[in-house]
Each structure stands twice: as C-alpha cells, then as structure tokens.
C-alpha cells in the first residue's frame, strides 16, 4: 500500500524537517513494515534534459549512434541505440551516478562513465521506462522525445516530471491484523500516537435536506451486512477529475476513471472504507442486500460474466443483482458519461463472507483487501459524508437529494478490557510505570478508567484488540521494542528429556559419511505414479495428495528407494561410482486417521561395469550400522518381502529376534534398473528401519577378559562347487573343533584359470585358542584333519594337501 506524505499532512501535523525515511523506519519498528520511501526528486537525481547537437554512426556497431549532447554548459559524447534518435532532438539524459532500470526491467543499476563498443559514453539517453515514467505512446526501441516541450538543456528532469510528494510503501502482509491502517487517516492517527504530533480529526461538511429523496434499503442478512448507508446525489456531471485528485490517486497507485468513481477510490484510500456508486437510473426501486439466488449471474465491472452461489452476498435492486457485495460492482449500473443521478454506497460486510466469495470467484480487489480485515461499521457513515462533501466540491451543480439511509444492526457497545499492569510488565520484561502505560494507551485513543479498565476505540475493536494480550502488545510496541533489554532466563534445575533418536541420527550420519564414505542426500517426501511403477511398488498403501504441483509429487513415499534411484540417475552424468544415503521418513496408510510415519536409512552403491562388490559393500555398511549401535541377536535370512525393487536371489533381510524386519540389502532388480536407464552399472541398495532398529540398541557393552594364552593361525584352502555357500563352509570348519576354533575369516574366493569349471577356490584363516593353556602341534594337526574331513564331505578338494 502506498501512502502519500502530502495526504497524511491533512490529518497530522508532520514537521517539514522530519526526514520521511526516519519516519518510515520508525513505523517499521512500531507499527508495520515499510518497504521503501519514494521521492521524485531523488528518483530523478543526476538526470537532465539534453539537446543532441550532432549525431554520428558508431564505428563498431550498426545499431548504435554517437550523440554529441549538450546539457547546458557542457557537451558530452553519449552512445545510444534509440531508433527514433535524430539530430536536434531534446532528450532525457541520465548522467553517471544516476539510477536507471535497463529497458524498464530488473533492479535499478547505478550508471558510470563507460566505453560502449570502444566509444566513450557519458551516461545514457533514456527510454521513459528506464527512468520510471509511463509513456504508452513510445515504441519499444524508442527513447523519450522531449522536442515538443523544447526544455532548456541542463534542466533537471524532476522539474519536468517531478511531484513534490513523497510516498511510503507499506508491506500489505504486515497490515493484515490492522483494519484501521488501510487508509491515510488511520496511518496519520498512528503517526500522531508514535511521534506525539497533533491529530486532526476529519469532520466533513455535510448537510442534507430533511425531506427529500432517500434510498430504500432492505438488508436480508444482518450477519453478512451489519450496516448499509446509502445516499442519492442528483444533478451530477460525469467528467474528468480535477488535477489535485488525480495526482493523489496516481501517487498512491490508483488509475483514473471519472470524477465519481475517482471520489469513491479517493475516500477508500483516505479512510480505508471501500465505497461504490451506482447510476441511479438503472436501479429498480431500491436496494436489497441479500444472498445470491441459485444460478444467478452478473457481469462485473471487469466485463466478466460470473455465476454466483447462494452463499455469496449481493447488492440487488428489486429485479436483479447490481453488485457482488464488497467485491465488485456490476456493469448494469455502472457510472457512465451520461449519468446524472447516483446512489452512493458505504457499507460494512462480514469479513469471512467477503473472503470466501473473493476466493471462490478468484477476484481480489482493493475493496476485498479491506473488507476481509473486519472494518469498523462506524466508519461507513463518515466515509459517505466525506464522499458527498468532495463530490459537491468538484461537481458544482450536484445536489444531495435527501438524508442518508442508514440500515444497520451492529453492536455499538464498546469493547472493555481489564488490564493487569503487573502482568504487562512481567510479559514485556521491563519496568514500565502504571502512569506510562496509561499514557501510551491514551495516545492510541484508548480510554483508561480506574485501575485499568480500558475501553477500546471502535476502529481497533473489530478484531484487532479484544483481549488483554492485545493491550500488552500496544504498550510494548509504543514503549519501543528497541527499549526492551536482552536477558537470559534462569536455567531450570530439572534438565529436559534427551532426544536420543536425534542424537543417534547424527551419529548415524557420522558413520555413513565419515567412516563408510557415503554422501548424504535429501529428497522430497513424495513421488509420482511413474516412480511407483518404475520401482515395481504397488500404489496400495500410499497416502495420496489431494492437491499437488506436479505429476511426480502425488504420493507420499512409503520407501526411500524410488527417490534414491532418481539421485543415481542424475549423478551418473558426473560420477561413475558413488555411494549415497538418506535418513528420512516414510508414510504408510494403515487404515487409521494418522498414517504410520517411520524413519528409515536408505542407501545405494553404484559402480560402472559388472560386479557383485556393491552388494557386499552394502551388506557391510548395514552390518557396521548394527555393530555401531550394538544391536545384537539379528537373524539374517536369504529372502525378501515387501522389497519389490530387490533382485530376488541377491538379497538379504535382517530380522530382530521377534521377527521384525530391520533391514534389507539387495542388488537392484534388473527390471527396476532398466526402468531407470541405469544399465551398464552395478547397483546395490539397502534400507534400514531406523525407528525399529533403535528400539533394540544396547548402548552398554560389557568387557570380556583378555586371553591369557596365545592363539594360533591355520590357513585352509579348498576347491569346491560354486554353489556351496561360504556360510556352510564356515559352519563345517567350526564343527571341526567347537571348543578351540574361535574365528574363521574368509580371505579369498577365486574362480577362473586353474580352477575347474563350476568350482571355486576358497581360502580361510582359522584362529584357534584355549582359555587355559598354550595349544600344541597335536591340537592343531587334529583340528586340521577334522576340518579337511568336513570340507571333503561337502565335495571339496583341499589344496596343498598331499
């Protein structure tokens, strides 16, 4: 919202030496966020009128010209590409140091002396848009031509186009809760309170004939329209508005229509109360404020035909709707050049209803923006009188036909709040005296009686100030947030509960990133049907979004895998091999209101070429995770369930003692791999149910006494059928001497040259140790014999055995 300083001065005595920037800053700190202060003199700083005395072609560019330009005393060389540039033209020159917007777009840039294609250019000759002027007649390649005016070269541009006014821009969002600040009048009142300046109350000169023509108003639903004030003015002449009015509307960002419509906009901008004017000749009998009938249609002022629904409020005559109440007027009763008699409307509507109608119709107008904030019904009458005053001023023949019709049913009892000043001090954290609290509230037109019974002024009590805390806010902000000291609260003696899961999440990251060399990624919580299909998942069990932004964000993920696959797809462009993981939530539909949210660690290892290594590395990573958190008694089975993206025989499930699935490790299903265009790579993945796994962690490990006698090592190498699992071989080795064999470590598997087809050579390191003695050669030989025997029973041939 734009606020004109000149206009504010109608209502508050602002000293002329006050820097508007300081005022804006103070408003930001005490009232609402201001976004900038615009001053025409500043906008046109370092811009002057130039006279092109000579024009030459640019030696290095066809489209550019070199213009010798006089700016009064001096003549400078300026490079310019304006299509309409001719010798003798009067132009706008932006000198070095000025701020322009290239072709009227983007952020303003500060000009400096420059060389353009090798030729010196002292500033630039500007298009209208480049210096913030609106000139619809200018062609896109043209520059601003001032030749018609022939101003003296060197004249500041601000003298030609400048207004002496300064405009402060407010951030609309920061005014959401302040219905009273949507006009100059309210802002002026706020400034008066903050700065202690005198506020000038508006008292429009208004006199209506006691008997005469009045508007017949019938309100069907007072909940939606608590007040409707109407007034007839005759003998109107519709024409252009006077300059002063146009200027103010322009400064605050409004267009010009005609004197009547402009006055309604003017009053809205001044008081924050939207108004409407109907051409009376189109209104049959009187005004009825009612809900729209089923299927009722209206063409609104923007020319669009709109179908209304029964929950929308309309302003109707006895035949048809003539306006969508508080949203937009109808074309059928619009003010036109032939209008001679008008009905002025100044009403109050229910904020929620206006908002709903506006959202449903997709129309947001200045009126909606204000009504949806809950306006003060008292303002309606004042605004109507003010509008009538101005119309009579600018339309000399106009006559008020009769008195104001005031249909209303609203609560006029002021809001009273009891304020506990001790609580006020305690909440703000500063010692403000009762006297000062009273002074602050009174400056804002609150009435304080007794020991703090506070009466809220009507313009603040529609929704903004209703409870004690609202008053505390008033005290705090006017006292000055900057005056509140920073202090630390006492630490409670009772320490908070520790979020061990969070803590372990960070430890898990350290494990995967810093120890295992994975990179952590973050993915969205959703994916699309295509991702579900490509991963061979089923749509069932998914939580689905009702509204979504793209087809690949329609379902909440039930697994981290699909999005990780997309990460792989992206990253093979840059890396042949990578290892990634994500810690995130899955969301599963379980037939209850709230879906099941679980935290998972998902990961992927990708290598170019064909290899089984990624599987074993992924398996190792998962084992490291269980080891890190000391999660014991895990059963590993060679089958997977609910893991459709896994290769059915190259996969493992890690189960808890109670049978809960804790993790899957798998080589990617070849179909899934193909669906993701990942052929030519070896990919293994894992998913750990972090939530379930951490229920089983054992933070404490107990110490086992260190061995007192030395261990001995024994190498065993066997050639055996490829299909015999390492697990079986190890079991057979252990069986050889359950008491003494402590460890069986695989250290090599070999297939290929020198090994018979269909066989593999496997080598183990066997550690033997006794708790009570040093082992003898005999112990070893005996164990070895048993090992050999057991392996041979499996069909193995011991290597190196005589």
């Amino acid at each position, binding site marked *: 919202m734009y606020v004109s300083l000149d206009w504010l001065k109608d209502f508050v005595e602002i000293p002329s030496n006050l820097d508007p920037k300081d005022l804006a800053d103070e408003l*930001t*700190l*005490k*009232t609402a966020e201001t976004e900038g202060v615009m001053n025409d003199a500043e906008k046109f700083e370092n811009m002057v009128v130039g006279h092109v005395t000579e024009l030459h072609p640019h030696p290095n560019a066809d489209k550019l010209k070199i213009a010798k330009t006089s700016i009064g005393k001096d003549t400078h060389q300026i490079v310019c590409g304006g299509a309409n540039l001719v010798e003798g033209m009067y132009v706008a020159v932006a000198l070095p140091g000025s701020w322009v917007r290239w072709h009227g777009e983007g952020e303003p840039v500060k000009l400096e002396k420059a060389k353009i294609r090798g030729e010196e250019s002292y500033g630039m000759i500007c298009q209208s848009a480049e210096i913030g002027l609106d000139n619809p007649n200018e062609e896109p390649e043209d520059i601003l031509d001032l030749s018609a005016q022939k101003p003296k070269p060197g004249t500041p541009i601000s003298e030609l186009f400048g207004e002496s006014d300064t405009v402060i821009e407010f951030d609309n969002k*920061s005014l*959401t*809760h302040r219905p009273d600040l949507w006009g100059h009048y309210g802002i002026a009142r706020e400034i008066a309170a903050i700065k202690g300046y005198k506020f000038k109350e508006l008292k429009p000169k208004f006199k209506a004939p006691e008997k005469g023509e009045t508007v017949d108003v019938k309100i069907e639903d007072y909940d939606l329209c608590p007040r409707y004030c109407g007034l007839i003015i005759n003998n109107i002449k519709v024409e252009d508005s006077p300059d002063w009015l146009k200027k103010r509307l322009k400064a605050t960002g409004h267009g010009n229509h005609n004197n009547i419509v402009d006055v309604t906009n003017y009053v809205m901008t001044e008081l924050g109360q939207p108004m409407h004017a109907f051409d009376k000749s189109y209104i049959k009998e009187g005004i009825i404020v009612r809900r729209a009938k089923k299927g009722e249609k209206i063409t609104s002022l923007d020319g669009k035909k709109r179908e209304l629904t029964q929950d929308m409020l309309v302003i109707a005559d006895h035949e048809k709707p003539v306006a969508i109440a508080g949203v937009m007027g109808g074309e059928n009763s619009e003010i036109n050049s032939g209008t001679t008699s008008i009905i002025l409307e100044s009403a109050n509507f229910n904020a*929620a209803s206006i*908002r*709903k109608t506006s959202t449903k119709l997709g129309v947001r107008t200045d009126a909606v923006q204000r009504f*949806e*904030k809950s306006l003060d019904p008292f303002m309606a009458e004042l605004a109507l009188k003010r509008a009538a005053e101005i119309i009579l001023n600018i339309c000399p023949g106009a006559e008020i036909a009769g008195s104001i019709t005031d249909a209303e049913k609203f609560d006029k009892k002021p809001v009273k709040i009891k304020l506990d000043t001790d*609580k006020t001090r*305690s909440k*703000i*954290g*500063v010692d403000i005296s009762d006297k000062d609290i009273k002074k602050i509230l009174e400056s804002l037109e609150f009435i304080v009686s007794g020991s703090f019974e506070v009466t809220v002024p009507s313009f603040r009590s529609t929704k903004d100030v209703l409870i004690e*805390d609202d008053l*505390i*806010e008033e005290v*705090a902000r006017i006292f000055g*947030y*900057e005056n*509140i000291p*920073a202090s*630390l609260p006492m630490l*409670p003696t009772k320490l*908070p*509960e*520790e*979020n061990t*899961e*969070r803590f372990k999440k*960070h430890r898990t*990251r*350290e494990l995967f*990133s810093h120890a295992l060399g994975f*990179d*952590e*990624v*973050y993915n969205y*919580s959703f994916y699309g049907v295509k991702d579900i299909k490509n991963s061979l998942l089923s749509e069932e069990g998914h939580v*689905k*979004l*009702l*509204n*979504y*932004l793209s087809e690949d964000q329609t379902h*909440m993920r039930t697994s981290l895998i699909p*999005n*990780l696959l997309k990460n792989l797809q*992206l*990253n093979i462009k*840059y*890396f042949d091999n990578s290892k*990634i993981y994500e*810690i995130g939530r899955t*969301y599963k539909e379980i037939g209850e209101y*709230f879906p099941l*949210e679980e935290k998972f660690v998902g990961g992927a290892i990708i290598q170019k070429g064909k290899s089984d290594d990624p599987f074993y590395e992924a398996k190792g990573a998962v084992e490291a995770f269980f080891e890190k958190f000391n999660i014991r008694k895990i059963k590993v089975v060679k089958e997977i369930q609910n893991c459709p993206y896994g290769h059915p025989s190259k996969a493992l499930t890690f189960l808890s003692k109670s049978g809960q699935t804790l993790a899957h490790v798998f080589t990617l299903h070849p179909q899934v791999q193909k669906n993701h265009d990942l052929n030519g790579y070896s990919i293994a993945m894992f998913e750990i149910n972090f939530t379930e796994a951490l229920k089983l962690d054992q933070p404490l490990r107990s110490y086992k006494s260190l061995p007192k006698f030395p261990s001995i090592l024994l190498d065993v190498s066997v050639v055996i059928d490829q299909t015999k699992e390492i697990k079986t071989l190890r079991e057979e080795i252990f069986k050889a001497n359950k008491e003494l064999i402590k460890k069986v470590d695989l250290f090599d598997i070999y297939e290929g040259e020198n090994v018979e087809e269909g066989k593999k050579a496997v080598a183990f390191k066997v550690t033997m140790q006794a708790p009570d003695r040093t082992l003898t050669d005999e112990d070893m030989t005996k164990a070895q014999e048993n090992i050999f025997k057991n392996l041979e029973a499996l069909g193995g041939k011991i290597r190196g055995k005589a």
Partner: protein
Amino acid sequence: MKQEIEKLEKAVLEELKKASSSEGLKELEVKYFGRKGEFTAILKGLKDLSAEEKPVLGKLANITKVKLEKTIEAQRQKLEGSTLEKELKTEFFDTSIPGKTPKIGHIHPLSQVQEEVERIFSQMGFAIMDGPEVESEYYNFEGLNIPADHPARDMQDTFFIQDKNDPKHGHMVLRTHTSPVQIRTMEKYGAPLRIIVPGRVFRYEATDASHDTTFYQVEGLLIDKEISLSHLKGVMAEFLTRLFGNPVKVRFRPGYFPFVEPGLELDFSCLICNAKGCKVCKNTGWIEFMGAGMVHGNVLKAGGIDSKKYQGWAFGFGLTRLVMMRHAVSDIRLLTNGDLRFIKQF
C-alpha cells in the same frame, strides 16, 4: 712430567677444535693415543718414575686420558650426526605427491547446521522434540488459533491429503510449519516447557530459486512463570552469537501471527557489513530472521496449560534459509535434488 701431561692435554684439545671430519679425528687419536702415540709414550714412561711420584702422576695421566677420550668421542658423535643429517637432507623424496586420504563422505549441509542449532539450544536447556509431518488441520491450524476463515490460511498454502477427514481433527494436511508440535508437546508434558522442534515442513507453492514445496524450520517454545520478551531477545542473541561465532544483535519489529500476542518479527544485525548496510541486508543493516511472540492464550488453552499461571514465547525460523545464508547457496532446489556436485562441497 706433570707439565708434559698438561701440555699434551692442551695440544689435544686445540687440535680437536680443528678436526672437522671423522678421518681427522682418527688421525688425532693415532697421533696421541696410538701405539706410538705421544700420550701413550707418557703412559709407558710412568714405570720409570719414583715410588712417590708414580701414584700421583699415574692418576693424573689416567684421568686426563679418560677425559680426552670422552671429549674425542663426543666430537665424533657430533661430526657423524651432522654427516647423517647432511645425507638425509640431500635425499630425494617427493612430498608433493597427493596424500592418500580414505574416502570420506559428506554430511548434507542441512544436517550439519541442524546439529549445530540443536547443540546450542541443548546447552541452553532446551529439549529437542519431534512431531508428525502428515498432520491434522486441528493441530496445524485450529489449535494454533487459526480458524478456517482466517486470512492467515492464505499465507499457508497447504497440501491436503485425499480421503482423510475426522470430526475432531478435520482434514489431513502436510504440516505447513513446525508449530503443531507446540500443542502436541504441551498436551504431553504440560508446563513448564523449554523445547525446540527442527523439522520438515511443506507448502503448496510454485517452486523457484527461493521457494520450494519442502523446507526445514526450527520452532522454539519456552513456557514458565515469568518468561518475558526480554528473555526472547536474550536467548536469540545468545543463539545467533554462538552460531556465527561473532557478537550478534537482535531487534524486534511488530509482526502478526495468529498464535502469538504480542506478535513480533525478529531481525539480526547483518554480519556481512557489520550492520552498516549492504546488498544482503538491503541496506538496512538488519537481516529478517523469524517470527515470534508471546504464546496466545488460546494456544495455551488448546495445549491444556493454565494461562493465568504460565506464560511464554514461541518462535519459528527457517533452517533452510539459514543454511542458504551461511553457505551463500543461491538456489533452494540444490538442497533436495541429490546432486552430489553440490553435496560434496560440504
């Protein structure tokens, strides 16, 4: 004879000074202590001395010999040491060959900053809380004093879930902020409370370089008997100062959020220009950081806390924004697209 011994001693020490190589030392040893050495000759002559002189001069000669030998030995070690040093120094060894680092992976910047935030608040006695991301309208809106027709619901463009409706909870949404956890924690633990809630939130909002459907927030809540806005200033100044490792100032501006009253915006002093004004802070010297305020009575009530006994404040800031600010990340989408060229930088 005594003079002779002393003279020889002097001579040895003199020559020792000049000996600059181990060869030179060897020659010196032969010259004095060899079979035909000068000192050896003296020792040999001892037997011809008188019975009175023999023990006295014999002792002197022996002491001197031992002393000189020790000195020579020390000199030898010194010379040899420097020779080794010289050899080592001239040895060729290429230290410029890149070091062998184990492959260390990278923790996502969001996780890194989140951990730091959690650590600082933990030190100030805040517990870290969690809540569901798929949330009910009740917890996300009504409980936080944002009724259905409230304009604030406009600002919270919301993702809704299909086919979920409940008489108490309303429709189901993806939480638009971490604030629902305020109510959930109040319900569960009551007052006093001192928590932060870092978490993922969602907005139904077109994506561009600075907006994404998914981002991270940190909610804070402190409820006790005499908690004031002054404490909010203190805690946030302390937090930001520790986070940035430099003194940071904070300021309040009025702001509006339905779940607090008074409502505030909190800015902190721009560290890039030292609050003098620069491009980053749009020449204001201040960086807009978060919304905050005293918890609204209706919210305390929804959480089952007696607002006559307890009061406190809440805040919410963008963790994602903080990460972007800290690491000068210009496109928010880099944080969720899994591009390792980005992640490997952290």
